[in-house]
């Protein structure tokens, strides 16, 4: 592959000596019972390289990283650091060898300050055993300044936005002298802006000689930052790709078939409006109005997508509909039945399918089997139960067909859901909610952590649900997803509805609306561009003819990506 050749050893950076590290995984194999999660994987991470791992859900990327970080013992194979074989008995060993990892779910103590969190586990103590926070604070400042992290060492972690918390995790690794940083789907929880900032940080780290192993399902990001791409499928390396390769080529290489990155969706045929929200206000325990006087309705056979920067009331809105919020004023009518004040069970039983935003906290029980999780909100209904007696056979039968239908990668429905890969967990939640008769379907971040192939499938299923005449509400922080699925787009800002605009409204207008500027003003500022750019050719462009495009412009790549092939639609509504 083409990458700048940096000899292992040391390179001089403007001001200081930075040790660099060459990492090699040789023949790594990892078995879980009968399942071969990693099958003789060879990967070389050169110093100062951003190395991207691309692969379907369940391909074995996270497993490989856990092996590299000392969390899993490989069944076979070895890890070489600067050409010397090493063996890690735990993350401590990996860290000592200069490998750091930022987990998708942060391992921070919320009530501690940034400095305290960073010091945790690597406490430098003064004489007498007192914690030397001064030292840590100084190091944080130093790193923060060097990379433009903008992190205050004395801030409480619980007060920080997700993106900044993630930087604290990165600082934690850097303070421990990490020369290789593992980032497993770091952008899945970030807003688009935070994502761009993270990508910048990654580039800076790289220029300082830190190598990064980066995992993401968002090809736009992958193309924007990576130097080398290794594609893994079913636990095996199937080849390398070049960041200059087209998105469709990357996608098909990863999934092993041609993937349609744009959704072919017929225009909506909205029927009667059966879901009506009127003057909805949700009051948080602190008295804050998280949802503030919202009114909208959704017709049968229509998808309303809710856009907005995370934390502007989306979560509370969906929770209010489901009956999870305590103080709700206003009215929510589904088929002329009032939902406000009803129990969650009543709401679910009246035909509401609900996909929560955070699958691992609200959507799944990790210690329960996949089969049990697939009936989590229907365990007490026929055919799964008669009276209070459950039928495990029926539960398992259901699991088998859902697993087949949604292509959940697992050897058995009896395994704990916690053993599934992230994307497959998401598929389980979607499978559960999409496979019962629905009168309303609400999904938050329906494809978070899901690979491109499965996104295609899930999007088709959501549109199919719409075509059955179900009102659908999608909440997504991915503007691409919103634009792709929506028949109409609602934008929330600080708990208020900024406006509802037709699909096909330009990104710039949506962007302004997401900052709280109503669409009339936004539209007059920028002529509404319903740029339905020619669909990018996504033919069977599967050959991996490597284009040695070394002067690949990352910014241009960021601007390009899936957005250029912007969605169809906008005729109606």
């Amino acid at each position, binding site marked *: 592959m083409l990458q700048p050749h940096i000899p292992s050893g040391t390179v001089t950076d403007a001001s200081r000596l930075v040790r660099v590290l060459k990492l090699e995984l040789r023949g790594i194999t990892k078995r879980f019972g009968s399942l071969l999660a990693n099958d003789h994987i060879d990967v070389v991470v050169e110093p100062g390289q951003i190395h991207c791992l691309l692969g379907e859900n369940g391909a074995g990327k996270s497993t490989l990283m856990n092996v590299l970080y000392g969390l899993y013992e490989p069944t076979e194979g070895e890890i070489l650091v*600067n050409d010397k074989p090493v063996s890690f008995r735990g993350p401590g060993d990996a860290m000592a060898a200069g490998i750091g990892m930022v987990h998708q779910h942060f391992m921070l103590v919320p009530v501690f300050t940034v400095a305290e969190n960073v010091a945790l586990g690597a406490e430098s103590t003064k004489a007498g055993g007192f914690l030397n926070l001064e030292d840590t604070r100084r190091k944080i400042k130093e790193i923060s300044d060097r990379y433009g992290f903008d992190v205050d060492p004395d801030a409480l972690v619980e007060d920080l936005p997700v993106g900044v918390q993630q930087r604290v995790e990165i600082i934690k690794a850097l303070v421990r002298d990490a020369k290789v940083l593992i980032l497993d789907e770091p952008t899945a929880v970030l807003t688009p802006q935070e994502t761009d900032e993270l990508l910048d940080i990654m580039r800076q780290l790289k220029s300082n000689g830190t190598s990064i192993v980066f995992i993401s399902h968002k090809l736009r990001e992958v193309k924007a930052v990576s130097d080398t791409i290794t594609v893994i499928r079913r636990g095996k390396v199937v080849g390398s790709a070049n960041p200059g390769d087209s998105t469709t080529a990357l996608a098909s290489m990863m*999934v092993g078939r041609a993937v349609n990155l744009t959704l072919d969706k017929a225009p909506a045929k909205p029927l009667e409006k059966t879901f009506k929200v009127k003057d909805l206000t949700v009051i948080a325990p602190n008295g804050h109005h998280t949802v503030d006087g919202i009114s909208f309705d959704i017709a049968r056979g229509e998808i309303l997508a809710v856009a907005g920067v995370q934390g502007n009331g989306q979560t509370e809105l969906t929770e209010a509909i489901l009956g999870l919020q305590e103080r709700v004023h206003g009215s929510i009518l589904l088929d002329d039945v009032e939902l406000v004040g009803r129990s969650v069970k009543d709401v679910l039983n009246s035909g509401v399918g609900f996909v929560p935003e955070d699958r691992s906290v609200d959507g799944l*029980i990790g210690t*329960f089997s996949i089969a049990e999780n697939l009936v989590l909100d229907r365990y007490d209904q026929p055919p799964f139960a008669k009276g209070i007696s459950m039928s495990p056979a029926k539960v398992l039968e259901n699991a088998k067909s859902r697993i087949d239908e949604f292509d959940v990668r697992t050897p*058995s429905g009896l395994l*704990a859901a916690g053993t599934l890969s992230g994307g497959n967990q998401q598929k389980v939640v979607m499978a559960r909610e999409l496979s019962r008769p629905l009168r309303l379907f609400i999904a938050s971040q329906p494809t978070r952590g899901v690979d491109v192939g499965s996104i295609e499938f899930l999007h088709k299923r959501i549109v199919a649900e719409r075509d059955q005449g179900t009102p659908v509400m999608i909440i997504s922080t991915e503007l691409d997803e919103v634009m792709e699925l929506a028949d109409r787009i609602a934008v929330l800002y600080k708990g208020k509805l900024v406006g509802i605009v037709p699909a096909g409204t330009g990104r710039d207008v949506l962007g302004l609306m997401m900052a709280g500027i109503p669409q009339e003003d936004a539209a007059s500022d920028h002529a509404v561009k319903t740029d339905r750019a020619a669909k990018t050719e996504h033919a069977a462009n599967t050959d991996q003819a490597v284009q040695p495009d070394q002067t690949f412009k990352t910014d241009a790549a960021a601007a390009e990506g899936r957005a250029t092939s912007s969605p169809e639609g906008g005729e109606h509504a």
Partner: protein
Amino acid sequence: MPDEDRPKHVDQHAKPHEKSVAAEETAAVAAVDTAGGAISPSAVPATAQSGKLPGGPDTLLRKIFTGSGVVSVLAVLLALILGGLLIAATDERVATTSGYLFARPTDFLSAVWNAATRSYIALFQGSVFNPRGSGLAVQFAPLMETLTIATPLITAGLGVALAFRAGLFNIGAQGQIIMAGILAAWVGFALHLPLGLHLLLVLVAGIVGGALWGGLVGLLKARTGAHEVILTIMFNYIALYFLRYLLNTPAFQRPGESNPISPILDPTAVYPQIFGSQYRLHLGFILAIAATVLVWWLLNRSTVGFEFRAVGANPKAALTAGINVSRSTILVMAIAGALAGMSGVAQVAGTEKVLTDGVAATYGFDAITVALLGRSTPWGTFAAGLLFGAFRAGAVQMQIQTGTPIDIVLVVQSLIVLFIAAPPLVRAIFGLNPRRKKPAAAGKSQQAATTGGAA
């Protein structure tokens, strides 16, 4: 109707990746695996997965209560070994032989071995089978005694285990046993009813008493958010002092006496003895088996148990799935109380036939250990109950035969808890750590690399 069209529609989209070799492979793997029927769960804890384990509070307590059964068995073994050493340490012969330890170490070692084995043999003879007895009936008497003592341990242990599976740390079995005992005893000596009906009423009264006492804790927790540990501790005290108070009132004393002891229960109100009057073993043991089966069914085959487990494993996901967490909390505490209540009935209507302030002995607290050792599974708890019953029954015989103090059994019990609470210790001692041993060469080069790389 769109809803009825759905299945057809689903079929259209059922196989999105028809041509994908990958999908076929999954199917093949799935087929092989499920055909075998034996799906072995992963050897690696799911928590090791980049921290993305869904599920509830993965607290230390939770791990201890629901960890692997192998650790339980090893913990018992280890505790017995240490207990044996302790016995040996107080043995006279061991003391004398240690005086010339270096001259004849074999003497010392054999003395240690003898001291420990003698005591344990006595323990076994006192709890399972006594070969010196005349006739089978006498030889098996110790086993009957073991089962009798195990009965209240099993049912109360089930209560603790069940609550724990629902995420509640119920240490109120003691109070629940007492409340059940009070009600059951009163029905037993104060009312005079026909055979059959009387015993049934005694049983119901005890179960209701325990259920109310437990359910009240659940109610307070669900309504006010008070912590169940504090509630149950307080409820234990309330129950105990309430019992002492009652035993000082004429209504609970024998006519004309002022001792804190109740009248003997009516013959119609006591459990029949299973194998005749020569053994104390009573119907309560059969009911304990039934309770174990019931709890197993409840947990694994019923919607109620599904809710309990869901609330215990991830209350937020349970809530989102429409499960009424408050109702589950109240219900599980009531059922736990009812199970402990069965222990109270077993005590007053089975073993003791009177009510004293020692009605619960320490069964309510031992039940926590029993549930812990049984990993909060119904049959595990049953087995652990039997083991503890055997310890209790055999300890007396051990003291009589070998002079080893009964207290050594308590030490062994405590050691078991200690080892269960520290699984890594047990695994380390038995060399069971999941980490594979590395060839020496790799170890050396690792050292070189880490010291070289991380300067």
